């Protein structure tokens, strides 16, 4: 049977729901799709066979599940094929613009997911490179290089918009 009751899941999501939502939104660039991922993470949590003992691990598990769900989304045939069709891409971009929450979020969303997720975990969630590597099941070197490249790409995007930020 499943470990977490509905009330427990509700309480966990009350605490970490925004974290899940923000992580999904930064990668998927659409609030509708972030909603979808949020629901999927909730289902995963409800279907867990054993409880996670610490808050720290629980948060890491939720982030990992969110990132996995986003990856699944990008891999999906629908998403892949939509990208081929310029007309639909344009429509999607317009939709994204409408949904954008702020300038920096918009700039982050212009980055490929592999960079935006690392930057988000580093700057927003304040995970160390080592922790991100554990979370994403990657080598620390890979995380460090993605962080560095992502940062450079982001700086370029910000400069284009006439903004200079200290990193």
């Amino acid at each position, binding site marked *: 049977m499943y470990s977490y009751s509905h009330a427990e*899941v509700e309480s966990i999501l009350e605490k970490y729901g925004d974290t899940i939502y923000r992580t999904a939104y930064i990668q998927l660039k659409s609030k509708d799709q972030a909603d979808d991922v*949020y629901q999927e993470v909730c289902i995963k949590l409800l279907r867990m066979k054993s409880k996670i003992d610490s808050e720290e691990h629980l948060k890491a598990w939720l982030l990992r599940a969110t990132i996995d769900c986003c990856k699944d989304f990008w891999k999906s*045939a*629908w998403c*892949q094929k939509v*990208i081929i069709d310029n007309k639909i891409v344009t429509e999607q971009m317009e939709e994204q613009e409408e949904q954008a929450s702020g300038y920096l979020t918009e700039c*982050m969303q212009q980055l490929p997911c592999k960079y935006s997720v690392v930057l988000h975990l580093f700057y927003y969630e304040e995970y160390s490179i080592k922790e991100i590597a554990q979370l994403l099941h990657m080598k620390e070197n890979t995380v460090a290089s993605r962080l560095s490249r992502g940062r450079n790409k982001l700086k370029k995007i910000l400069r284009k918009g006439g903004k200079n*930020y200290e990193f």
Partner: protein
Amino acid sequence: MNFKDSYKQEMNLLKKPSGITKKAINKAVALQEQNVPDRKIFRHSAAWKTAIAAITLICIIGGTLQHEKIMSFAESILGIFTLSANNEKMGFGKIQPVPMNVKGFITNAGTKIVLDSENKAEPPYNYYQYFDSYKDMNKVTNIVFPCADKVEYKDIAVDIIPEYSYGHISAQIIYDGVSYNVNGMYTVEGFEHESWGYGVNYAKTVENYQYGSDKTARFVEDDNKHEIVYFTEENILFQMSFNNGTNIKEGDATATKKQVEKLLDLFGKSH
């Protein structure tokens, strides 16, 4: 300006929509009640993606989106197609795998692999191919379309995810001067998933249309009054949109409901 502080400030303003947790829990409960397994293939509204994938194939070919924002998800039980609309389940009968030469298909020179957002392909690979005629398609895939000798099939696309042993087709049918956009899902040998099919969330059955001696097509309507008809032929679950006065757009199929029924009757006669 410091990026970290500014980004944090901006991100903190982004909140999950109210009521989303309750909605997610209710959805999870509904899935548990329906006993939908947590399989990789059906992770994260994969059914929604699968259904849209087929629709999008048509969009690629025709350059047109048949239905915007159709919320769909797939569901059924071991080879028996079902359609789910607002928790209502409708069976379509048992289907058999198509005798497709998958290896031949994916090694064919014209086959392409669907790429991800970064123009890369990662497993599970999704292979697709376009065909100018039914004859070419049938030769390569062994997939049979209904009444191929009586109607014309144009702009055919076939895709397959060999790892999951299923794929999609899409095509334009020309019959009696009328054009119909159709897409479908099929399985191949090795398909083991317990869930399979099409469905439309937030939709209701408008009508069950009997055709042939024992066939039923389901007319389903979504929130936007877009109607889609579902039926199975030749072991393919077909999904077809038509002009019901609300979902017609430039480039869409011109068929009306009556004409769809006429086409179904033609399919029925060939059984």
